[in-house]
């Protein structure tokens, strides 16, 4: 009997569709949980991550094969991010009238980010390479990796910290904003996009089209702001 199930497990494990099915199924279940309990704690991306990890453990799939088999989803990151141009286009009249809000959110967000990273780097006596690595934590991964490489940081750590920031923004971004009296959809969208790139924007889209449009815009602008500020930030004494 055991040999039969072992054979089934082997067939499933070597099946390229298992990783994708686990991921999409996990996400679907996460969405159902969120709909049922209506709490920000039931964050779809985080629960899908957890369920996928359980599935990988259960079928003994290693991360290397998972990454290869889930590549079709990762491939879609660029086309799906590009589609943020549509809500941006639909809301552009609002963006134009609120150009000052857009600009100030991105500039303030970028500068506060540099300041926080610098303070923490000093407090923990981090090396220069680690400091430059953390600098990219708020921005979209492709830009962050570019900055890290340019200043000799650690790319793997950049990806990790960007993901942590993204999940944080996705999970509790809107909660703290509302508590602090930041109520306008535009300010909320900008605040989420500035600190947690596409992960946060995924959440902003759930809040509404205005939030999604401003959040998507903030990804691009904060990324560019950080590229521009990085040379000056690299000169700060540690």
């Amino acid at each position, binding site marked *: 009997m055991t040999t039969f199930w072992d054979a089934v497990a082997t067939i499933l494990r070597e099946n390229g569709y298992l990783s994708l099915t686990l991921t999409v199924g*996990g*996400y679907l279940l996460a969405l159902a949980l969120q709909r049922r309990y209506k709490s920000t704690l039931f964050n*779809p991306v985080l629960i899908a991550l957890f369920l*996928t990890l359980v599935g990988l453990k259960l079928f003994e799939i290693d991360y290397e094969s*998972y990454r290869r088999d889930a590549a079709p*989803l*990762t491939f*879609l*990151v*660029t*086309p*799906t991010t*590009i*589609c*943020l*141009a549509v809500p*941006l*286009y639909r809301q552009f009249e609002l963006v134009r009238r609120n150009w000052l*809000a857009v600009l*100030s*959110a991105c*500039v*303030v*967000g970028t500068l506060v*980010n540099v300041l*926080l990273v610098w303070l923490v780097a000093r407090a*923990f006596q*981090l090396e220069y390479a680690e400091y430059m690595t953390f600098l990219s*934590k708020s921005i*979209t*991964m*492709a*830009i962050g990796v*570019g*900055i890290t490489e340019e200043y000799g940081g*650690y790319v*793997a*750590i950049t990806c*990790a*910290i960007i*993901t*942590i*920031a*993204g999940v*944080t*923004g996705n999970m509790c*971004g809107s909660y703290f*904003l509302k508590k602090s009296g*930041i109520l*306008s959809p535009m300010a909320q969208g*900008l*605040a989420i996009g*500035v600190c947690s790139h*596409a992960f946060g924007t*995924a959440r902003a*889209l759930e809040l509404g089209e205005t939030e999604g449009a401003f959040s998507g815009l903030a*990804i691009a602008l904060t*990324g*560019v702001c950080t*590229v521009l500020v990085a040379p000056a930030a690299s000169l700060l004494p540690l």
Partner: protein
Amino acid sequence: MKYVRQFFIILLVSLAGETLHCLTPAPIPASVYGLVLLFLCLEFKAIRVEAIAELSSFFLVLLPLTLVPLTVGLIDSLEVLQKVLVPALILGVLGTILTSLAAGGAAEWAVRRRERRGK
């Protein structure tokens, strides 16, 4: 045919974004070039928004899902974080919330300022 055409347009913009990314030395990713490019095409009526409406809505729904494999990759790279785990968590969680509040505060101020002036 409608959906195939929509898919083709989005792929075309992705291709253009990736090409720009490869041609320029700045660390700007294909997705950011593509986003700006598609926006400009829509704004200057080179592409009508109806021509990509259904598929772009579908892709936006998929956006969070496409990020899940990347977070799974994070678990794999947790080892590299060990040496700097405490500052990484402080910055990743607390730093993110503080940055968000600062940016949101600035935006909220600007929005209210405009509303007060009644423009």
